[in-house]
């Protein structure tokens, strides 16, 4: 049925997932030395800020947080480009030799991540790139997988998964739309 929405992760669920992801990032990278967080606009950028805050509370150090807009790197523009304005890529530091954690809200086909990696590589040569997502909904079309996952949600390709944010840019809940 069109427009039917189910909440698949509530606010406290999101908070717990972000806390766990933050711990896993710290564990994998043995702290925050050389770690930078890059969020994919728009949802991923907000989550990257959130992970940055939580990791700072745990570790006492703040990792640099940047944002990348992938509009100019999309692979589905051959016929008609999207008409909307191009968002800002905001990476005010060098990525050379950094351990980049790329953050997105929902991992689906993997094409967004491919575009984001291309966009990022034009800003420098990171030592390594890891991927953190709040939701992995499957249906990959490219050989891409996430290193840190909030929750795996099996979905039908016709469904839509959205992470909703409030007007203060705080994540509220994750909904599945049929």
């Amino acid at each position, binding site marked *: 049925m069109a427009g039917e929405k189910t909440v698949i992760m509530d606010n406290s669920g999101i908070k717990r997932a972000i806390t766990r992801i933050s711990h896993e990032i710290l564990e994998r990278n043995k702290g925050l030395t050389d770690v930078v967080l890059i969020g994919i606009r728009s949802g991923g950028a907000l989550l990257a800020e959130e992970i940055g805050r939580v990791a700072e509370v745990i570790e006492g150090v703040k990792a640099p947080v940047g944002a990348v807009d992938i509009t*100019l790197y999309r692979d589905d523009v*051959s016929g008609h*480009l999207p*008409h*909307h*304005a*191009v968002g*800002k890529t905001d990476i005010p530091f060098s990525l050379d030799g950094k351990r980049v954690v790329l953050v997105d809200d929902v991992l689906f086909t993997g094409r967004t991540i491919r575009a984001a990696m291309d966009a990022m590589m*034009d*800003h420098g040569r990171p030592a390594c790139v890891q991927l953190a997502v709040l939701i992995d909904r499957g249906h990959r079309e490219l050989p891409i997988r996430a290193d840190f996952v909030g929750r795996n949600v099996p979905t039908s390709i016709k469904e839509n998964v959205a992470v909703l944010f409030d007007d203060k840019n705080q994540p509220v809940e994750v909904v599945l739309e049929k």
Partner: protein
Amino acid sequence: MEFKHKDIIALRDLSKEEIELLLATAESMRQINSRDIKKVPTLRGKTIINLFYESSTRTRTSFEIAGKRLSADTVNITPSSSSATKGETLADTALNLLAMKPDIIVMRHAVSGSHYFLSSKMPGCSIINAGDGTHEHPSQGLLDMLTIRDRFGRLDGLKVAIVGDITHSRVARSNIQGLTKMGSQIYLAGPPTMMPPGVERLGNVTVCATMQEAIQDADVVMMLRIQQERQGKTLMPNAREYSRYFGLNPQNLKLAKPDAMVMHPGPINRGVEMSSYVVDGDQSHILKQVENGVAVRMAMLYHVCGGELE
């Protein structure tokens, strides 16, 4: 907000929202121009022809760089190297170019309105106006608006003085069309022989008798080039007299607001419409205009590719 035009020929054809969209995209494009790798893959596989029937340094280079930074393939055609010198008509040139399947044609032409004609001959190909006769120069209008907005954070309510040869200036027309849509107030000054009758009908435009009146308390002072190539000999007695009555110098610039910005579309006739003290002074934003030109033209190329066929 979506951009639905196939062509950008005149700012007169664009709504306020569409101009805002182009400026917003240009701001994002600017980031690409300041980093080490100044290229994005967006227009990969697109072909852009720069067809310049009139000479140009800034505009042509700027459009070419804009195309290359978006990964399009750009080709330049200039009058001396084209079949126009052998007498080929614009219609025939258009059909021949169309046969080579370009995606965008950026044209500068001495005849006002020639882009509408070109567009009618070239369905499926986007046309961008890089200056047509004394009609419009939309990319210059947009980059001027972006430069002004950078400085003041807004366009509405600003007093903009445009001084010089208004009749022959496509830059003035594009700025009047664009800025009045965005809510600026335009004050024009120039010799009566260079002031088109009825120009007030273009919108929020006031024609002033003297240059002093126009730049009094202005936020922006935009000086125009004396276009010797378009004028007959009778429009002004000589350059020295023009400079005395309509040239911008440090003294009359004091009439404008203390933080007023000075602009010029280039190329400058130093000592005629502007003294070198002003050109190289603190209030001059002339090179900032050129810098913004690349970003604005990237935004124009990007959005016409997304436009639907009209």
